[in-house]
């Protein structure tokens, strides 16, 4: 399985989908997050692998 983390939320998804598909599947906006795996930024077409932990970084700020 693939663990996806955004702030204090966590999900588990099946491996083999792209990062973009994973973000969409979680109901999130791909424009509003970046994905990091093993400390490295990864692009949206990257395929997730079994055992991955993907940290999503929210990019929207303001007030």
């Amino acid at each position, binding site marked *: 399985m693939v663990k996806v983390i955004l702030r204090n939320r966590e999900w588990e998804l099946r491996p083999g989908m792209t990062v973009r598909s994973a973000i969409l599947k979680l109901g999130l906006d791909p424009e509003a997050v970046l994905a990091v795996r093993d400390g490295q930024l990864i692009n949206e077409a990257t395929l997730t692998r079994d055992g991955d932990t993907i940290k999503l970084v929210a*990019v929207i700020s*303001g007030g």
Partner: protein
Amino acid sequence: MKCKKCGGVAVINMRHHRLALCADHYLDWFVTYTQRTIEKFRMFGSGDRLLVAVSGGKDSLALWDVLLRLGYQADGLYIKLGIEHQGYSDRSLDYVQRFLETSEAANPPRAPRPTQHVLHVVDIKGTYGESIPELARRTGRGRGKPCSVCGLVKRHVMNRVAQEGGYAALATGHNLDDEAAVLLQNTLRWQTGYLARQAPVLEATQPGLSRKVKPFCRLYERETAAYALVRGIDYIYDECPHASGATTIFHKELLNRLEGRSPGAKHSFYLDFLRAKKKGQLLLPAEEVELHPCEKCGQPTTAPGLCAFCRLWQ
């Protein structure tokens, strides 16, 4: 997905530019694109002294980093607002100071120019007697949220420090998403005065006013965040506790939904607005505001007597 420059693994794909880049080429592209923006809008020159407003967030620290890499003489200004919720202000300042400690070694400039830089810290409570939340509570301004007081105080302090230090320009980390969200908000309400003033460069039209520039105004927010991540800049990730539910964030989310359906929508929305304005295609009211010095602080103000900032402290 491969880097368009070298064929290596891309870390980011910018659909509106049809450009995917690896980490090294992304860092290069980002710095070059910022320099092009500085030149395109004639923001400042190589010999100008700059003051960069830094909050500890991704945009401002990335901006300071890029300006130093480009060899500009750029000092920082951190305004300690006194937001105590989960130590927000203290933690923000820690990030800025940590950046300052590491930036000397981590910023080999592209050009052999001086990179001596300092950080000015203005503690609002220490300087004026009350923190931003205390000031907002006492004055009742902003309907229970300190954001409007915060904006007013920051604009005053930034202008004061830029003036006192003789800086050629005050640079802020506003990105394209910030500008597009403001544009959307002002368009929805047809705030023609604000639309007339919105620009990448706010000229010092009066004595006592500093020139303000936004070198990241053509970069998406996800691009500045990506730069900070790839460059290893440690920034405060938590949002200001008072920003929750802010209209700006809602407008950014709306614009991102448009962007998802139509890559480049935000880019066109903002930059075509600037182009149309420059060509005179938008009939917006000319700025004819009469300013005069505040009786107390001397900063330009439209109000007779004291400026809005000085009235806060009465």
